[in-house]
């Protein structure tokens, strides 16, 4: 345990030192406060319009940003140390590969978790002070929880990339492709499937397919509880599926554990 804490502590402090925590928190805070108060500016009004519109627009922006940030933060975790020679050195220490992996995950996951909580929490608290409505806290609570899990999931995916890549620059390229796939291509493919398949895709089949993408699960978590009038496209159909937020969050947790397990297996067979 001491080893894991030591590694986590180092990674967390690296995150502080590189201003990652500060910049991510700032981005999230500006985004959420901005959307909360000026999201309706296009229609000529400022101030909170409706909670569901706010969360819907927050979610559709965060779904692009969070995976990108997590991948950027973690893609060089292993390949970077491998290039510098410290990975080999660390493995000659009384430190197992899993301890190193979980230590890094704890440290970098801590940065993501703290940034999401502080960043999005700001506007939640501002709103709560103004409106004194418990529903705000609850909705934002789910939002922050799912955003954190989404970030952790992509941190773990970044570790897989980092452990498989032979060079840092290749890892960066693969990370970008991964982001592009999950954030854009996957949904386009789903839409194409929806339109293209003549016999029609059943609602449950569509929802099941969406479980293959953590970004879509994140969207579902946050839109499931809202007015479906604020949501359109393929999501609207999926939302009507009867998956509870807790179930969705559990699946999202699976999307953290699964890549982390795969990363651990890859690390075990990795040649140094």
């Amino acid at each position, binding site marked *: 345990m*001491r*080893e894991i804490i*030591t*590694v986590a502590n*180092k990674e967390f402090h*690296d995150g502080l*030192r*590189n201003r990652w925590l500060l910049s991510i928190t700032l981005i999230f805070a500006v985004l959420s406060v901005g959307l909360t108060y000026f999201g309706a500016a296009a229609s000529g009004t400022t101030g909170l319009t409706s909670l569901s519109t706010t969360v819907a627009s927050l979610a559709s922006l965060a779904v692009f940003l969070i995976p990108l940030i997590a991948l950027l933060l973690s893609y060089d975790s292993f390949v970077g140390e491998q*290039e*510098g*020679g*410290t990975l*080999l*050195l*660390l*493995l*000659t*220490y*009384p*430190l*197992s590969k899993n301890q190193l992996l979980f230590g890094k995950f704890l440290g970098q996951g801590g940065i993501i978790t703290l940034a999401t909580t502080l960043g999005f929490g700001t506007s939640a608290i501002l709103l709560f002070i103004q409106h004194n409505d418990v529903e705000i806290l609850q909705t934002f609570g789910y939002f922050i929880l799912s955003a954190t899990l989404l970030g952790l999931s992509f941190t773990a995916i970044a570790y897989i990339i980092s452990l498989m890549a032979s060079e840092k620059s290749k890892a960066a390229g693969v990370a970008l492709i991964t982001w592009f796939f999950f954030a854009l291509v996957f949904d386009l493919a789903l839409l194409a499937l929806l339109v293209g398949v003549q016999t029609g895709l059943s609602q449950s089949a569509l929802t099941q397919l969406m479980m293959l993408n953590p970004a879509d699960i994140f969207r579902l978590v946050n839109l499931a509880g809202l007015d479906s009038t604020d949501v359109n496209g393929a999501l609207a159909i999926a939302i009507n599926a009867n998956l509870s937020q807790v179930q969705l969050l559990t699946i999202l947790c699976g999307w953290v554990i699964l890549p982390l397990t795969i990363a651990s297996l890859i690390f075990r067979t990795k*040649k*140094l």
Partner: protein
Amino acid sequence: MNKPLVSLKNVSKHYKQLKALTSINLDLAQGEVLGLFGHNGAGKTTMMKLILGVISPDVGSVTVMDMQPDHKSAWHMRARMGYLPENVMFYEQLSGLEVLTYFARLKGKTKAHAKELLEQVGIAHAMMRPVKTYSKGMRQRLGLAQAFIGQPKLLLLDEPTVGLDPSATAEFYQSVDQLKTQGTSVVLCSHVLPGVEQHIDRAMIISGGTTLALGTIAELRASANLPTKIMPVGLNGILAEDKMLNPYLDSTSTLKVPEQEKLNILRYLLADSTLSDIAVESANLEQVYQYYLAKGANQSAGIHMALDKSKAEA
């Protein structure tokens, strides 16, 4: 006799097509300093990795402190080993003290221990500065401090003196001598040879993954049977004419004399009253090393020729 601290028995390690190591046998006693010499790609780093337990041998067995280093139960033993990899880039944005504290904590040691080590290697004045501002020599010293964490019983040093200036090199060898008296075994991996001879107990020369020679420098020198250089000054140019000296003449003023003839020739030269000065140079480690490498190359060339011949015959 004490049990060896490190023992490699008939160890082979192959990567896909590359035979990194073949049939290596080595026993390293406690407090012994072994010089491991070979060209780049000779298998030095692979051997270190095997001893460290980062990789496992394909054939044979590696034992370190009575344990298999690649086995799970040997993890706690790793705190008693120090390793300096070649060309390691420490975390650039961290300060020297932060880097060393991180590594010390992983071995269960404190920040105070890290500070002591930084003082020992002589970079305590720069410990608050980020590593990216360090010179090559300072980085190397930081690496050494890292290897010294926790007073290891076994030190594996890959090219430890690269980038060190002569005085730092001397200081480094002093600390090796000091560790040796404390009972630490050291494997010094190097291809920089001058100066290392007096600090090692035995030398191992490897090439292409096989052992070419293993023994004390004196043993290696004796079995290589390299001539001693004698350079007399004076003598009024009789070297070429003298029947006794003529066969050994290498150039106008240098004699190359086999080890067993050395004293006879010296006595003969000293008897000459016109001799004004004399220099005697035994074969150094560099020459011994070159001799064994050439011998190894000849042998493998011989094997290839024999193979070609048998193929041709078939």
